[in-house]
């Protein structure tokens, strides 16, 4: 399997300005030293709470936000930010809110065809044919091509957003909370569609969501992010059954489930700290139910504890022991 995307020590800091002169008083470390790689055809899930930097990570990979430091390699080539046009032919993004991600006064056909026109792919006839094919493929009627976005439901709009992303045949699609705004009952339809399209087009996905349930179903591997850092990375089922980080355990137990009792769930106290001033040592320690003195002193590294399973916790193996009993 070949590596499609590699991210090395990526950082994205946003300056916090204050006062009349706009002095930079601090930095929001939205993405703080993140490294991972993505194989061709796989789905990598990215989970975390709001504000953990997962959306910024996705947008930085597309250079919608220029990175502060670090490298992004696409098919082994380092991206400099100058080849954005070519980059954006290969990497596409599907946004969260189907109500704001489509231009309200543009016909569906134009929304889907615009990427083809931007990149000058094909003549009018082939563009029209492609639009009809795409509509069919995402489960909409080709006859609806001349309608406007407001005539569609949330789920249908998200299908249009997917068709737009696929129109230029990208190899990597990033789904940024692509189903979070939909009714639970409709989410399943869209997730199934993502899977079908992956098979047919050999797509690679970076699937970003706050919902571990969604990510677990979609992904081969899952990456958990907390305050700009990756805290755990492991194959999906293993992460789900035996997480190696207490934060992952807490996230997992919070997923609403018909079977698990609420009383058995792990409670996290407090809120995520401000990303302008992350706590010393392990960033999770003020909320961690397993915290020891060392956690506030020494920042744990993201280490491979078991083959293919990375965790940034001093007590990763204790988690394994704790979940094995469950």
């Amino acid at each position, binding site marked *: 399997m070949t590596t499609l995307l590699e991210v090395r020590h990526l950082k994205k800091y946003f300056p916090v300005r204050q006062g009349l002169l706009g002095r930079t008083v601090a930095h929001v470390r939205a993405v703080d030293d993140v490294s991972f790689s993505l194989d061709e055809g796989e789905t990598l899930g990215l989970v975390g709470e709001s504000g953990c930097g997962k959306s910024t990570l996705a947008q930085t990979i597309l250079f919608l936000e220029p990175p502060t430091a670090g490298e992004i390699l696409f098919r082994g080539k380092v991206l400099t930010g100058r080849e954005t046009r070519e980059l954006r032919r290969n990497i596409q993004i599907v946004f969260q809110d189907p109500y704001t991600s489509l231009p309200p006064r543009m016909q569906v056909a134009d929304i889907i065809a615009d990427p083809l026109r931007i990149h000058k792919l094909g003549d009018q006839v082939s563009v029209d044919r492609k639009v009809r094919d795409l509509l069919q493929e995402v489960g909409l009627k080709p006859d609806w091509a001349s309608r406007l976005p407001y005539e569609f439901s949330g789920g249908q709009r998200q299908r249009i957003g997917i068709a737009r992303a696929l129109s230029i045949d990208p190899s990597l699609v990033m789904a940024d909370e692509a189903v979070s705004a939909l009714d639970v*009952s409709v989410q399943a339809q869209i997730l199934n569609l993502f899977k079908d399209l992956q098979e047919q087009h050999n797509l690679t996905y970076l699937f970003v969501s706050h919902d571990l349930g969604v990510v677990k*179903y979609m992904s081969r591997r899952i990456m958990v992010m907390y305050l700009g850092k990756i805290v755990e990375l492991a194959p999906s089922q293993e992460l789900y059954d035996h997480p190696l980080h207490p934060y992952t355990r807490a996230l997992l137990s919070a997923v609403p489930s018909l079977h698990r009792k609420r009383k058995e769930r792990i409670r996290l106290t407090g809120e995520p700290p401000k990303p302008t001033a992350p706590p010393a040592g392990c960033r999770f320690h003020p909320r961690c139910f397993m915290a020891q003195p060392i956690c506030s002193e020494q920042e744990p590294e993201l280490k491979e504890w078991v083959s293919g399973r990375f965790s940034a916790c001093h007590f990763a193996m204790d988690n394994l022991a704790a979940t094995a009993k469950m």
Partner: protein
Amino acid sequence: MTDSIPNQSTKSARGTPRGSVTEEAAPRATTGNFRALGLFLLRRKGALFGLVGTVLIALIAVFAPTIAPHNPLELDITQGLLPPIWNEGSAPDHLLGTDALGRDILSRIIWGARYSLTISLLSVAIGSSLGFFLGLISGFFGKWVDAIIMRLGDIQLAFPFLLFAIAVLAVSPERNIWNLSLVMGFAQWIVYARLVRSKVLSEKEKDYTRAARALGASPIRVLVRYVLPNSWQIVPVVAMLQIGGFVVVESTLSFLNLGLTPPIPSWGAILSDGRQYMVVSPYMPLLPGLAILITVLCINLASDGLADFFDPKLAKGGFRRYPLGLLPELHEPQREPLLRVRDVTTVFPMEEQVVTAVNRVSFDLERGQILGIVGESGSGKSTLGLSIIQLLDAPGRVVNGQILFQGKDLTRIGDHEMRQVRGKHVGMIFQNPGSSLNPVLSVGYQLRETLQRHHTLSDEVATRRAQEALEAVGIADLQRVLRAFPFELSGGMQQRVMIALAMSCEPELLIADEPSTALDVTTQVQLLDRLDEMRKKTGTSIIFITHDIALLADFADVFMIMYAGQVCEMGQRKQVIEAPQHPYTKALLDSVARTDVPGNQRLAAIPGDPPDPSEVPPGCPFAPRCPRVMPICREANPGIMTLGAGHTVACHLLTAKSA
């Protein structure tokens, strides 16, 4: 693609009515648009009057040379100062009399329309196009471009218009239409530039603009294809209103001898001429004044009406009446419940149809009980909640049924009494805590205000109670939160403040409408814990409205599943979660079980879309999406049947089974 095939067929079944309704409002359907405009004008008499008047005045201006009985510049001193036809001493060929130089006033006013309106239109065109262009580039390119343009605008606004007008017009050898329009229009560019700039700034941040950039579109393409089509609409609306204003400005300039060089007639010029003869012939200033008044009025009425017409919020929906089955035989306990809802129907009378959002819903809620109302968007679950607390958005109203709260029918009591009930006896938590809290008041102030509205409390006691309320929702950092403004708090913290606010008066009933949807999963668990604790401590009953049934599985005592405004299944947790009877309940439960589905299997999805309350199909509303649909389902609404104690289901399968 198994899920999308039924989806398509259901859409095609729905596609026809939906298409025919919406195309009327769609901007591209020109003929439909004219018809819709006609219907709109018939309802809005003022707009119709304004539009007809404006068109008439415009026609007069265009055909002035043909209509005017005399040359407006033709002098005849012998015929000077003739009165209008209805006064003594008038001449039959000068209907409205003549001025001091014997020029026909009617002809001058007709020609005046031509000059005044041309000047107005030209001024608006100059001001709006300059302002639109500058606003567009200012907002889109930002940085120093924006800084320069906006500072120029500040100077323009600070610079006295009259001084500017005098500086330019007083030195011009001749004051014609062009330099007059230029002076009047130029000064207005900043009005348009600011509006357009703010619109562009918000468009720039929209996801679809971001999406266009993600697709590799160049800045110019993003500007022309994505930002511009969504920003220009503000310009004609303001421009229409300004046309009227410019007619007045032009007459002011004439009055100051800065108008058109005589003898060219504009209304301002005629008015200013007439001023000198006001005592001799009061009609001379009055008539052009009247012309200005009528014109400005007509234009304003017409532009107001058109602005409303093009407002996208006026989208219309369809409605179909459908029969209802048997009424439920509810399990009625001896004791009076806290809340008894019977046959409640809530409708939204829209432009052309009446949309039924809640259709004959009945339930009982005991003290200390938690009722979970589950449904997709458009199922009427939020409308039901708002109906109970009587906070429906206009034009919604409860048209049928009773809402008995502690024996009192909330649909019958007056506004004043309802305000007493709200807050003190019935509290509500909304989905978006950020927009439900008052942004300009501190949390402490809002809590104290709520407490003092319902109880006579000293400030000290109120502050203590406010602290207790925050403590009860698990806020440790009391002093900071009390002083904080809502925007300084995180979403989870805001939602806790909302609960504290709703619970501060210890209401008997709390309605929570999707309170956790905007929160992270870890915060959701905390929210449920808080609500549960509250219930245990104060015995409050809770109605929890959500689209995610899994969230409530271990929380609610009673479940009510709603679809298209109707109850499809209701019962205890054991009955609904463990032995669901309605195919929709089963499908909902299956669709949330995705953590149990291995990645290589397909998720159980409900095909099609959530119901559109304006297009409820005849028969069972769930029939188009139902996996077990039978012919009868498309014809007759099943009506509610009782299975066991408190377990009711509305499905034809049950009758089929028992038959």
